[in-house]
């Protein structure tokens, strides 16, 4: 069977939580056993953060080339820009594919004429529904502030909001806040009071042009807002909003998988649009913060974060930067309290003694485990986690301690880490909801399952556990970021046993620490992958630019190579003549000529060597180097050209500069580009004394500064704003990526590239780089 080829086309960052949730739910459902095999590809336009149309032609060309030999069966277009793109370029890119869209607002679909084979799941952001919630929770609300950013997507969402909120404008005073910087938003939101309500949409890009993850901006706002914040997106739950009328991304992803099945099973049938209704979700912590009653919520509203736990009350200690010290001090604090209790208890009944001592021992164990896991960096997380499982298993007299990961829809758990006592067999590594429906149900709600006797459980859970060799089980759900991501299970194989209730929250804490370590590990790997991919891409692009530069310089280079070749020819001819005209006896002269030949050959070789380092394909590579030398060598290269144009280049390097750590070839490329631009600017100018100055200095704050100062005609005010943008060129035949790649290289090295107009005419390009020592400290 030929697998179906499905291309997912995201219009935003595919790593954003909603996209990840959609994607993983869809994939999961598509790859269930017994389904038609699929081959999935993923593409992103990232149109939220990058203005549309900027790279459209290049993207189309790239996709056309990439999929030239692949027959695409379906395109899953996520977001309005994704749908537009998929439809617009259908005939060129995927003429026979079904286009299925996701997350496209109904408001947009109303004005759209789609192909007959295109269908999808629309979204109707229930903004009014969300605001009804706001009114229900706090009837005294008089003013509603709607906050959104300056990006294309931000504005699109806001347009929908304005329309939907019209009907509320009688009751409420509605203000729209946009086109401000994040700092400005923060300042203004701080001035609201508790009788106001905030509807937060998205800030993908603020007025300063800074791009952000909308959820991160929300967290910042929520931290300072005296007024409750509401929002219509599920992914915001747990990040500072009180409540919202939202759609489940998991449900949408799953529904999309069904749609793909349906569409590809009958490729020509047209399928009507799918609508998914919204539901109410609230955050118990936020309700508490604003003194709101859960009873004011609609009866079917799901309340998350209800159960108190250290994890939930202080997620910032665990989720964010993870401060092992803080967490440990809390644990140690707990330990001291326990110790005091032990002392008091001594005087009291000795029955309690065992329990309290057990408790104390367990707290000690917790400190031990958590400090082992929180150690940064964790060189071997697997063995550290296995060790923790062993310790906790032994402490609770269990024979199996297993860590499970749970899929986003809560249907299946997979073993990730395990410990079993000697002689106890390891059970199968997968559990399905059908096998253990009761346990799955409780766990996905976030409840702890503590079973001391299997008879307490209904069928089929009871039989399943018996078959798995369990006599008693403690299963603790692991909640990270508001989601149940896994389960820690402890099993007593041989006998029924009671799980000490006072220890359960602590077991849960250990489980959550482990889950956090795993999440952090996964996150770190992802970040690392993304960084290395970016670096590779930058180097590929940089290489292209270098080759192009050398191409532009080819006439001057040919001249520079021809000179020594011509000299060699002359010397050789002269030697030949001396020999044939009987001067052969004049050996010293011949030796001198041969020496000169060797000198010129070396000179030609040098020119080629200098070029080779620039055009050679290479991996990006970081070393310590002397910036002054690199600048001087690069200027020597440019002088091949500038000499013929009667332009002098003067290099002034401050003595005793610190070393720089970075990629020499890339930094050389930045200097090459800036100096050549300077030479070019001077070449066009009428000035008599054409002097280009290049300065290298060290500043007080451990940075080296390179300035390229020309006396050219300068850059027009209109061009100034765009010179660092890719594909913007003021030169005929210019690629327009020289300065863009320079800025990207400099920023990747922790520096800044800037432009200024000289008071007495011409331009100055300046970049700075941290010194090698400073970089290590960072």
């Amino acid at each position, binding site marked *: 069977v030929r697998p179906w080829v499905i291309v997912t086309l995201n219009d935003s960052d595919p790593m954003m939580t909603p996209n990840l949730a959609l994607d993983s739910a869809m994939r999961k459902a598509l790859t269930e056993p017994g389904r038609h095999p699929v081959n999935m590809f993923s593409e992103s336009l990232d149109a939220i953060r990058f203005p549309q149309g900027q790279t459209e032609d290049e993207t189309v060309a790239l996709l056309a080339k990439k999929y030239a030999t692949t027959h695409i069966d379906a395109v899953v277009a996520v977001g309005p820009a994704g749908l537009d793109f998929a439809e617009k370029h259908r005939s060129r890119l995927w003429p026979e594919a079904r286009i299925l869209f996701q997350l496209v607002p109904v408001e947009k679909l109303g004005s759209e004429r789609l192909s007959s084979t295109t269908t999808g799941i629309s979204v109707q952001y229930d903004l009014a529904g969300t605001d009804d919630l706001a009114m229900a929770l706090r009837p005294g609300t008089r003013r509603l502030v709607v906050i959104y950013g300056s990006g294309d997507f931000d504005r699109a969402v806001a347009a929908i909001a304005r329309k939907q909120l019209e009907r509320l404008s009688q009751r409420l005073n509605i203000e729209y806040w946009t086109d401000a910087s994040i700092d400005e938003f923060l300042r203004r939101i701080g001035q609201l009071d508790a009788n106001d309500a905030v509807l937060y949409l998205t800030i993908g890009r603020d007025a300063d042009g800074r791009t952000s993850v909308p959820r991160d901006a929300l967290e910042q706002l929520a931290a300072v807002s005296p007024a409750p914040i509401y929002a219509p997106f599920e992914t915001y739950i747990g990040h500072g909003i009180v409540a919202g009328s939202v759609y489940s991304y998991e449900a949408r992803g799953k529904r999309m998988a069904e749609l793909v099945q349906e569409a590809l099973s009958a490729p020509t049938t047209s399928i009507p649009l799918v609508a998914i209704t919204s539901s109410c979700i609230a955050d118990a912590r936020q309700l508490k913060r604003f003194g709101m009653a859960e009873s004011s919520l609609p009866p079917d509203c799901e309340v998350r974060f209800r159960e108190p736990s250290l994890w939930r009350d202080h997620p910032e200690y665990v989720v964010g930067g993870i401060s092992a010290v803080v967490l440990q001090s809390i644990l140690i604090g707990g330990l001291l309290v326990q110790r005091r209790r032990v002392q008091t208890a001594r005087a009291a009944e000795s029955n309690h003694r065992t329990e309290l001592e057990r408790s104390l021992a367990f707290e000690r164990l917790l400190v031990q485990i958590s400090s082992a896991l929180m150690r940064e960096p964790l060189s071997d997380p697997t063995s550290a986690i296995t060790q923790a499982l062993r310790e906790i298993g032994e402490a609770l007299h269990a024979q199996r301690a297993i860590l499970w990961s749970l899929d986003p829809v809560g249907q299946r758990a997979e073993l990730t880490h395990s410990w079993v006592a000697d002689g106890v067999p390891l059970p199968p590594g997968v559990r399905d909801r059908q096998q253990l429906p009761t346990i799955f149900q409780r766990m996905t709600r976030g409840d702890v399952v503590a079973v001391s006797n299997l008879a307490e459980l209904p069928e089929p859970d009871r039989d399943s556990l018996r078959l798995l060799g369990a006599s008693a089980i403690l299963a603790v759900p692991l909640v990270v970021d508001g989601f149940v991501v896994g389960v820690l299970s402890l099993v007593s194989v041989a006998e029924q046993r009671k799980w000490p209730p006072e220890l359960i929250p602590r077991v849960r804490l250990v489980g959550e620490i482990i889950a956090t370590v795993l999440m952090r590990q996964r996150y770190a790997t992802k970040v690392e992958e993304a960084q290395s991919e970016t670096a590779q891409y930058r180097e590929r692009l940089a290489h292209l630019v270098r080759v192009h530069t050398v191409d532009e310089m080819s006439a001057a280079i040919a001249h520079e190579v021809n*000179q020594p*070749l011509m000299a060699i020819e002359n010397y050789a001819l002269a030697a030949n003549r001396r020999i044939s005209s009987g001067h052969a006896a004049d050996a010293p002269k011949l030796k001198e000529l041969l020496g000169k030949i060797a000198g010129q050959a070396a000179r030609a070789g040098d020119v080629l060597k200098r070029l080779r380092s620039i055009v050679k394909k290479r991996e990006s590579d970081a070393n310590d180097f002397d910036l002054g030398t690199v600048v001087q060598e690069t200027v020597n290269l440019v002088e091949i050209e500038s000499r013929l144009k009667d332009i002098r280049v003067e290099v002034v390097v401050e003595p005793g500069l610190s070393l720089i750590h970075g990629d020499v070839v890339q930094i050389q490329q930045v200097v090459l580009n800036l100096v050549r631009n300077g030479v070019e600017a001077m070449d066009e100018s009428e000035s008599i004394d054409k002097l280009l100055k290049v300065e290298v200095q060290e500043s007080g704050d451990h940075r080296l500064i390179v300035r390229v100062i020309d006396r050219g005609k300068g850059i027009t005010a209109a061009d100034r704003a765009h010179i660092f943008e890719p594909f913007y060129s003021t030169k005929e035949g210019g690629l327009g990526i020289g300065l863009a790649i320079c800025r990207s290289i400099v920023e990747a090295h922790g520096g800044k590239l800037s432009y200024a107009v000289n008071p007495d005419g011409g331009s100055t390009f300046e970049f700075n780089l941290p010194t090698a020592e400073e970089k290590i400290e960072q």
Partner: protein
Amino acid sequence: MSEPTVFIVDDDEGVRDSIAELVSSIGLPAITFASALDFLDNYDCDRAGCLVLDVRMAHMSGPALQEKLVAMGATLPIVFISGHGDVPIAIKTIKAGAVDFVQKPYHDQQLLDSINEALRRDAAIRVTKTRSDVFGQRLTMLSEREREVFDLVVKGLSSKAIAKALAISHRTVEVHRSHILEKLEVRSVPEMIHLAGQVHE
């Protein structure tokens, strides 16, 4: 008169030194200059030889130096060398009197041939120049009457017409003519007219 010298002007040290070596390998003296201005500062018009000149140089290019030399009345023959097939510049320099425009890369013999040709031309110019200088000296030795007769002979008048113009006898004119040929050390009237043509102006 000094030995003919090959002057080499090129801003590339390797190139100018190697040309000098090439020139000295055939036994000719060579002097090198790193720029056109350097050459102008040190060049003595009376020195025999030729100029090997690079086309593209900073500050003053080869063709610009050529213009300057023409304006100064210097007759030094020039061989241009160029790394670029710049036809318009080649035509311009040849029209302005350059001996050759040698393009890099060139064959072994090509540059030396052009240098030899330039030296031959310089020698020829200088011989002519020397003969006319001597002739001009000798002219000053003529008496006033002989000078009058000389001027009219050069104008192409016959002895009869000269006699009439000066109101002297035909016989006297003949005597003056033979004295003039003797004093100017020429064998015939046509030779005398030819040399006179070179002196004038």
